[in-house]
């Protein structure tokens, strides 16, 4: 459990430091059960901060998407640290970003939040539709949902986000300050979800994906929400060379999804931000998880767990599998 008072105190202390520019955390959302990102620029802002199972966003994305606007001549860019609150899964994004040299370790001040799981907002909304204002808390193995003066308890399993159901790293793997006590691993990943899809016949697979891919609006939200997608100029929307056309049809959409997923192979840290962002409910994690599984099984590699390990596809082992090669 994270002590909110402590969390705010630490945030206040941190933002008061000279070398810290902002603290990124969570604050209550504007409707329903939501929470949203908070940007603390001065100590008073910290009073809004919260942490609850509604804090689903991966704040590590903000470290890398900030625009680097031209610095006026004679001035130096603001090099103060960004402090960011991360759950276990989110912390892996930081590790992976460090592995990819997105920034130096001392650019960030990591505030670790040992996490017992967050909700799947879709499941919450399906269960409690059209609630304009409500709260979610985790108590033991139950989520306590309160709204309009009522309180309901739901078994944790029923509303828990899928990614949390297989979370092996609930306690952040990197942090400068830990905002709570270590949480013991409460789940493991057996990839049974991927296996279900793998077992489908060729035609079933394509039928499954055709439905999803053709629905994709190509809004690129999945890419933008991803903490690992921060290229200045993404090749998937580049005009020269044009890897795929911007036009929306099953062909270009499929190409987009193959390419996006491949670009995350060995890099995706399974935070689920892409899927959460997708307005068309495309099961992006099903794609990411196939690579994740193969990468682990074939190359014994787990992205976002060790900032020192070399990038997966920039290394090889002479013993890599090759039974498929003619």
């Amino acid at each position, binding site marked *: 459990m994270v002590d909110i008072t402590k969390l705010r105190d630490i945030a206040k202390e941190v933002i008061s430091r000279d070398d810290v520019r902002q603290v990124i955390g969570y604050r209550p959302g504007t409707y329903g059960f939501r929470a949203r990102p908070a940007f603390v620029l001065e100590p008073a802002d910290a009073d809004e901060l919260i942490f609850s199972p509604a804090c689903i966003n991966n704040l590590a994305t903000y470290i890398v998407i900030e625009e*680097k*606007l*031209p*610095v*006026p*001549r004679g*001035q*130096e*860019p603001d090099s103060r640290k960004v402090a960011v609150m991360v759950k276990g899964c989110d912390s892996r994004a930081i590790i992976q970003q460090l592995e*990819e*040299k*997105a920034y130096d370790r001392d650019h960030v001040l990591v505030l670790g939040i040992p996490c017992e799981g967050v909700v799947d907002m879709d499941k919450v909304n399906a269960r409690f539709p059209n609630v304009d204002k409500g709260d979610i808390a985790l108590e033991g193995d139950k989520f306590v949902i309160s709204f309009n003066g009522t309180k309901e308890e739901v078994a944790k399993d029923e509303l828990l986000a899928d990614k949390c159901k297989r979370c092996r790293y609930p306690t952040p793997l990197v942090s400068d300050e830990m905002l709570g006590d270590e949480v013991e691993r409460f789940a493991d990943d057996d990839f049974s979800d991927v296996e279900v899809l793998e077992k489908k016949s060729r035609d079933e697979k394509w039928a499954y994906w055709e439905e999803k891919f053709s629905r994709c609006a190509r809004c690129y939200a999945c890419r933008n929400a991803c903490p690992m997608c*921060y*290229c*200045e*100029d*993404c*090749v998937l929307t*580049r005009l*020269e*060379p*044009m*890897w795929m056309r911007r036009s929306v049809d099953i062909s270009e959409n499929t190409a987009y999804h193959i390419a996006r997923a491949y*670009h995350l192979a060995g890099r995706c840290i399974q935070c689920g931000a892409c899927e959460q962002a997708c307005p068309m409910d495309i099961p992006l994690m099903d794609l990411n998880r196939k690579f994740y599984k193969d990468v682990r099984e074939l190359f014994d590699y787990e992205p976002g767990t060790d900032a020192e390990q*070399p*990038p997966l*596809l*920039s*290394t090889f082992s*002479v013993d890599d599998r090759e039974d498929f090669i003619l």
Partner: protein
Amino acid sequence: MNGKPRIGVYVCHCGTNIAGTVDVEEVVRFAQTIPDVTVARNYSYMCSDPGQALIVDDIEKMGLNRVVVASCSPRMHELTFRKTLNGAGLNPYFLEMANIREQCSWVHEDSIAATEKSKRIIEAAVVKARRLEALDQKEVDVEPATLIIGAGIAGIQAALDIADAGFKVYLVEKSPTVGGHMAQLDKTFPTLDCSACILTPKMVDVANHPNIELMTYSKVEDISGYVGNFDIKVRKKTRYVDVSKCTGCGDCASACRQAGRFANEFDEGMGMRGAIYLPFPQAVPAKYTVDKESCLFLSKGKCGETPKCLEACQPKAINFELEDEIVDFKVGTIIVATGFDVFDATLKPEYAYGVYDNVVTALEFERMVNASGPTGGKVVMLERGKKKKKKKEGEEEEAPKVPESVTFIQCVGSRDKSVGNEYCSRVCCMYTAKLAHLVRDKAPDAEVTVFYMDVRAFGKGFEEFYDRVRREGVRYIRGNPSEIYRKNGKLIVRAEDTLTSTPLEHETDMVVLSVGLCPRTDTRDVIDLLKLSQSSDLFYLEAHPKLRPVDTASDGVYLAGVCQGPKDIPDAVAQAKGAASAAMIPMASGKVKVEAQTSIVDETTCRGCGFCVEVCPYTAIELVEINRMGWHVKAARVNEALCKGCGACAAACLSGSIQQRSFKDLQLLPQIQALGVK
């Protein structure tokens, strides 16, 4: 070249080789319809003078700026036609070849299919040609000097060859003397010449050669640059002896308070030395060295009233104030000849090396049988670690015992997965035979037995030598001993004779372990300096196992001797001579061509992730800090002199920021499209 592409397409008949199967006229008609094709022609032999003249003429008269030649494989004539373009004043990289012979007319009999395929191949070539860019074929000057790291026999030989050819050589050896392992040996198989007799003259030559700058007791600290232009930094460790004054008389060594107290590395710890010493009498240079760790003055700050050596040295060569010296110089090529370490026998505890005095390694035994070695060349039983009794004046020293039986065990640390060495060390069979012979020679009464897995006598005169040794009465037992233990003052070797499948316990006085050759424990240092690769056995990796056995992946860096893999002296010397001549090629020509189809980074989109850096086998890419609109960000930068144009980086880069010239995404994707469409 700017402006709209104006492409000429030239379809070759190659006599009937192409035209016999492919409808050349039809292909030309098709080529004329491809956008941006200004002219399409066919001709009987494009590579002939009139054929080439056709191209030159069109370039000049029609203003062509791209050329597609549809003929044989680019591996055959790409260079020819590049020259043609060059001759016509067009950049040679504006050429694209369409291979419609080897990969079309010669492999498909069906004329219709072959004609169709030719069209596709040509279309793909045209769409690529449309996007070709002019490339620079650069050359760099070569500094006429070579750095050689390691002065074993390999390094020495290479140094002499290069110096004799008139080039400057910097020979850097880390120990106080040159010679390496060969200097430790007594006789050499299979001819039994005396190692010192053939090696010492070369050692002396190396020290005296006007073109060789010898730096012993030195370490290469930094190497940067690329073929032709390496910048080298060497640390010459101080010996605390002014080498210009030292006459090598040795008065200091006998005077040293610590004389005889430390194991001499050169004698594999079997002989002793003082704090100031010469590794062996014929050491080159014959200059004494103070070992900092063992010197009382240097380690404790005090050695009696005054250090005795200082007093003893007449020319006043000893100076404890001396410091390491750093020297910088430039070379064009580098030869790595750092040799090997012998296998650490303690890693096979079953052989009880280090437990029983008379289990010795072959290298120790080499020192023992060596006339200038610690036992004066006698084969004797050892009493190690036992303090020598101070002998009283005039007292006869008790003669050491001669072993009644000596047993060799081969393949210790070689061909042995349990210690991670799968390879054969290639010299152990033969040096065992040699040492067995020497035992027969020096202790004729001793019984000699060899345990072996196989005897590999593959070299010139090897089998004959092995045969001779066996005939001399050396007993060979096929079987790998499993254990050595002591019983009643004797060593017992437990083994199984695998030829007869009988277990046996063999009693002996002395066991010699034929230890294998291993990569140096400090291999990493050199790897970090030169970014060399290692093969799975951890020896340095050559560029190609058959055809470039002395080259490395890095241009201008070559390998010689055992550092590349186990070998005997003749092979080490042969490779050294090979490496020397390889190193001299760029120096002799004075210039090296640099690959033109190198990679290039778009710094505005590069995210500085370093994926490309990690992938590049030639360490041609580095991350540098750039200023992007006031921000200090990292971006990749390619050193074109190092890049070999493999394109691996381009496939590793997610943002498409690094691209291989002539094989850019922008050039390949249209090709894919042209081939895919129909």
